[in-house]
């Protein structure tokens, strides 16, 4: 065993798996390649212990006032799950706004917690690189998919421009009536006066239908999209989530099988001279820069995964977060019932208040002075949007949910600079339509118990929230 292990270790360090996959992709189908890599990594782990995967065991999170400042570790994946995050980030913002944690399970990292500092880091892609990944921890070995959210200009700009037309105005206008009809289908089937899980019946269902529409994915298989997205964002080594490496690989193989097939079908349609739709794959096939993307599996998988995750957790958890916020601030619910024209402004306020993705990670490209601290070249830097969105220095009464808040659009949840969220208008549209249709049907959406939250340091979301609907009085 001892003489094999160095060879394998050497093999993986000298030859990059993505390169091998790219070279063989025209001969070997992608799902089989992914399976192959999975077996290889498994074998490698067995004979030669690679980087250990962190194991997270839940413990009650202490009151932040009991900790020394250097012991505060906001990468703890239970901080959101136990709903203890507000006091932790407030202490960092007040006492140590650019904070270094040197012993986290994800390695040492800097936390940037104030609005203005986050804006600075997000804008300065010349100083802070988004490569190789925007999660706190490193990628599972062998799954180094390439995606433009984790690329720097100029490569980022080319790739993003190739796909951004999927949310061009013409498409958004086309999508509005479709989104509305799908929302209405769901809402009309909801039970009234009895408890049910809002996450499952509304948020997940509506987001899955939307994703299926965007990708023109087989409608009856739409739940797979939400499942893949959950798995991608939930590996322990990246975000402290609960999925095993095996599960991630199995999902990746399955996803590549479905999407390769969908791609080939659309490609055949294109060859036959049929008119192409406005779905994402048709758009990629219609663009000269991306029409052969399937031959670069890591890029193919990476960009699809990005668009699935980008459209899933974000919107889903804002759909749940909005209901929770209106329950915690009942006067705002009253305000909304009396004036539904506040919906667009409320949508921005929901996205700020919930902040469904807590952060984006960067790596310093050179030594940078920030708020009195020196960040060294190569250090990980985490921009905590979830904290900046509650920064008292920028936002009045930041912990309050105020649906007619002035400047509600100035939140950080979409990020700023070249990586700003591409689907922001689509997300706002989906939330606006949901609330327009909810107010037509229901007088009240009562949250019955404390919701259950996701285990992750990245996704700030819900696994369950029991509610009861009251139909609108006739």
């Amino acid at each position, binding site marked *: 065993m001892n003489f094999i292990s160095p060879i394998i270790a050497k093999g993986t360090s000298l030859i990059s798996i993505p390169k091998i996959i790219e070279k063989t992709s025209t001969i070997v189908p992608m799902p089989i390649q992914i399976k192959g890599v999975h077996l290889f990594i498994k074998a490698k782990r067995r004979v030669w212990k690679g980087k250990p995967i962190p194991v997270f065991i839940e413990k009650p999170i202490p009151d932040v006032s009991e900790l020394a400042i250097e012991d505060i570790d906001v990468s703890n994946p239970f901080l959101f799950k136990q709903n203890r995050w507000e006091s932790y980030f407030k202490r960092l913002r007040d006492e140590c706004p650019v904070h270094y944690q040197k012993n986290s399970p994800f390695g040492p990292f800097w936390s940037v917690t104030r609005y203005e500092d986050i*804006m600075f880091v*997000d*804008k300065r892609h010349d100083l802070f690189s988004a490569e190789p990944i925007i999660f706190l921890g490193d990628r599972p070995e062998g799954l180094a998919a390439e995606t433009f959210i984790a690329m720097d*200009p100029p490569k980022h*700009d080319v790739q*993003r*421009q190739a796909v*951004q*037309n999927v*949310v*061009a*105005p013409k498409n*958004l*206008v086309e999508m509005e009536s479709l989104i509305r009809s799908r929302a209405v289908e769901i809402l009309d089937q909801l039970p009234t006066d009895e408890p049910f899980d809002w996450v499952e019946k509304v948020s997940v269902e509506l987001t899955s239908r939307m994703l299926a529409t965007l990708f023109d994915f087989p409608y009856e298989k739409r739940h797979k999209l939400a499942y893949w997205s959950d798995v991608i964002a939930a590996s322990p080594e990246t975000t402290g989530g609960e999925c095993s490496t095996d599960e991630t690989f199995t999902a990746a193989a399955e996803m590549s099988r479905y999407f390769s097939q969908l791609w080939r079908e659309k490609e055949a349609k294109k060859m036959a001279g049929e008119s192409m739709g406005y779905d994402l794959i048709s758009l990629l096939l219609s663009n000269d820069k991306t029409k052969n993307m399937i031959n670069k599996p890591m890029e193919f998988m990476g960009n699809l995964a990005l668009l699935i995750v980008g459209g899933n957790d974000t919107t889903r958890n804002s759909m749940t977060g909005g209901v929770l916020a209106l329950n915690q601030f009942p006067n705002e619910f009253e305000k909304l019932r009396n004036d539904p024209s506040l919906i667009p402004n409320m949508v921005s306020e929901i996205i700020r208040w919930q902040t469904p993705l807590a952060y984006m990670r960067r790596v310093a490209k050179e030594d940078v002075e920030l708020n009195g601290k020196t960040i060294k070249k190569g250090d990980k830097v985490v921009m905590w949007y979830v904290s900046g969105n509650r920064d008292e220095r920028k936002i009045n009464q930041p912990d309050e949910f105020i649906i007619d808040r002035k*400047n509600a*659009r*100035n939140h950080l949840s*979409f990020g*700023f*600079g*070249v990586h*700003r969220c*591409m689907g*922001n*208008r689509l997300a706002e549209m989906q939330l606006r339509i949901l609330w327009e249709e909810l107010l037509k049907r229901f007088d009240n959406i009562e949250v019955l118990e404390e919701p259950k939250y996701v285990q992750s340091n990245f996704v700030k979301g819900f696994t369950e929230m029991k509610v009861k609907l009251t139909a609108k009085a006739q």
Partner: protein
Amino acid sequence: MGSITFIEHDGNKHQVDIEEGKSLMQIAMDNGIPGVDADCGGSCACGTCHVIVDKNWIATTSTASEEEIQMLDMTPEKADTSRLSCQISTSEAMDGMVVRLPEFQM
């Protein structure tokens, strides 16, 4: 005092007074022009104060920085005379200027 005209995507016109030295975005916000969002509040970091300057007037505006062009490249509605209005400092030389708004601020 000079004025600038904003034309919304649906053709609605809004004529507003120039306040020398203020950014075009700030003037739009102060006058409640629909269709200018300014999500980042004037930091050249979001692209949601996009305007398309009438080509006869583009020479009166400064040249767009590399940073601004990078943000403009992210909108599918970018035109030859697209600018971020937060990066245009207004002056009396712009009296009569016409700018059009895109269908969506991305």
